């Protein structure tokens, strides 16, 4: 067993010094997170007048970034779930931080729907209780679905991450104690809930972990679909289509896989975990991203081709989105999401961070452009002639986006700092071929 020790993984969070590069990254992410706090306070004080949204562009960065982050969270979760349920060898390395990336992305996503309410401090009105004048929320509204969708997504993603983490937190406790760091050991011990590795506990733990993983699966489809249905249930011609949920779910996947791929490359290099996230893992992740991008190519082509069969209003709306004022967003998204990741079919490229990181981040950026194109390009042609300027994000909106990226980065850095980034018990288990119940 000990020829494949997990000590380098467990001892990483116990290191006293992470080096100047880590400190630099934390400082950068912390600064951006402070910007987020600033943007939120400014928004609370002055309201959505700070944003560039106006009729007909009722939604802007709030929805663009929300849908984008949820897409990243979903694909990262989907990836982790598939690995857990299929008991693939790869899961020993990447499922844990894919889960963490999903959790951080959900946290970044969840701030937008609250902020875009206009009066964010009344967000609790969406809770199912009679908030004002004894009136309950309208349970036939998609907004109530949204409340349940986002809330459950946050909770279930967190449960998934934590359930898998419990035994590894037990390892952290024991390692910290062995190094004589009693205070740290106490903290890990409390969050490990007194895990002592009884084989009875393991049997139930594995069942629970798989059940939670299986529960994440429908959650992914439902969360993105509910967002998509909020578009589709409007009467805006470009949005009022049955393919919107498919488009949003399908294009979300390369964005999340791209982020996981980039994180894997960075962790390999940054934390020296090449032994745990090995070449095979990178090959599989790269191929998955390329395949998901290919599927998105199909979704894009289908969207354009089926548009030819639509009625005139819808056809014009789609043409306006693809060839109108926001055409650059549409095609920029298509290139970054569909075409560029095809480079990952080249095996030599998949192992080189200098290629993999930009391609992965590029896929995420491409999906962001796609969401931008959907939200604003979709509103270019409504039923009424448009008056007034095009939508362009204002500085406070950019600040909010930068801030949410900072929050995501800060959460990921904290994750790399305080918990093992690789599932240690799975790494140990890898050699044993016995099936778990």
């Amino acid at each position, binding site marked *: 067993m000990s020829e494949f020790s997990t000590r380098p993984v467990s001892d990483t969070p116990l290191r006293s010094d992470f080096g100047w590069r880590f400190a630099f990254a934390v400082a950068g992410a912390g600064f951006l997170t402070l910007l987020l706090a600033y943007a939120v306070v400014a928004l609370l004080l002055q309201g959505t007048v700070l944003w560039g949204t106006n009729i007909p562009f009722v939604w802007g960065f709030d929805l663009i970034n929300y849908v984008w982050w949820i897409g990243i969270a979903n694909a990262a979760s989907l990836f982790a779930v598939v690995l857990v349920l299929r008991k693939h060898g790869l899961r020993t390395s990447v499922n844990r931080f894919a889960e963490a990336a999903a959790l951080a992305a959900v946290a970044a996503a969840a701030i937008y729907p609250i902020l875009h309410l206009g009066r964010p401090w009344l967000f609790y009105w969406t809770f199912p209780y009679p908030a004002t004048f004894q009136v*309950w929320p309208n349970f036939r509204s998609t907004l109530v679905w949204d409340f349940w969708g986002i809330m459950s997504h946050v909770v279930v993603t967190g449960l998934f991450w934590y359930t898998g983490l419990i035994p590894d937190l037990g390892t952290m406790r024991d390692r910290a104690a062995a190094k004589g760091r009693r205070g740290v050991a106490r903290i890990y011990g409390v969050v490990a809930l007194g895990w002592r590795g009884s084989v009875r506990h393991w049997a139930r733990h594995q069942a629970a972990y798989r059940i939670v993983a299986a529960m994440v699966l429908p959650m992914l489809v439902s969360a993105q679909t509910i967002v998509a249905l909020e578009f589709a249930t409007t009467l805006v011609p470009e949005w009022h289509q049955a393919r919107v949920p498919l488009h949003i779910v399908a294009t979300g996947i390369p964005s999340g896989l791209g982020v996981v791929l980039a994180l894997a490359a960075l962790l390999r290099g940054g934390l020296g975990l090449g032994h745990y996230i090995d070449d095979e893992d990178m090959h599989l992740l790269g191929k998955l991203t390329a395949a998901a991008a290919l599927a998105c190519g199909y979704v894009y082509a289908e969207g354009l081709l089926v548009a030819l069969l639509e009625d005139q209003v819808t056809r014009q709306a789609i043409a306006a989105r693809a060839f109108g004022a926001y055409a650059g967003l549409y095609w920029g998204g298509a290139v970054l999401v569909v075409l560029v990741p095809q480079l990952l079919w080249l095996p030599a490229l998949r192992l080189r961070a200098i290629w993999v990181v930009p391609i992965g981040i590029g896929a995420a950026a491409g999906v962001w452009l796609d969401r931008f194109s959907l939200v604003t390009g979709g509103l270019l042609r409504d039923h009424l002639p448009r008056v007034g300027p095009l939508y362009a994000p204002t500085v406070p909106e950019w600040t909010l986006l930068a801030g949410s990226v900072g929050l995501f980065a800060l959460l990921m850095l904290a994750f790399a700092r305080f918990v093992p980034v690789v599932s240690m018990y799975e790494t140990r288990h890898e050699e044993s071929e*016995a099936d778990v119940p």
Partner: protein
Amino acid sequence: MTRPGPIGVIATFDDPDAMVAALRAAREAGWRRLDAYAPFPVPEAAALLGVNGARVAWIALAAGLFGAVLAYGTQWWLSVQAYPINIGGRPLHALPAFLPATTIVGILWAAAGALLGMLALNRLPRLHHPVFAAPGFGRASEDRFFVCLFTGDPGLGAWEARHLLNRHQPLSVAELEA
């Protein structure tokens, strides 16, 4: 004053197969109060102790169904009974509109039920347990395997436990104090 005897005897192994063999021998010798500790799931050992994940699954299923019924019931009761409002002439009892929240809340309850059910069946959280005092037990979460036989049943004392465990080439055998 007499010192209370050991509550159990614990043996350390460096191999899961040795742990399973010792566990099987103990079961055959009639030990009923025993446990094994490993750094990763050993389903064979769990089967010897008669434990599997089925009860966790039943708890999750029951919790999920309860959550779904609760969500649907709440929506129905509030929309149809407690506060019926006519919005755009749509039916008060709107099955399609109630379904998303019903499924999502059911999933939420099932996932929480799986984790909480697992913890409850495992009697966790329990921050202290006598086995933590066993020498070298910290490596139960790394690369060592332990079998603990708890004494107390008639005819199954510390001497018998030591005798049985020593036959399986343990790295060490120690007595657990209460």
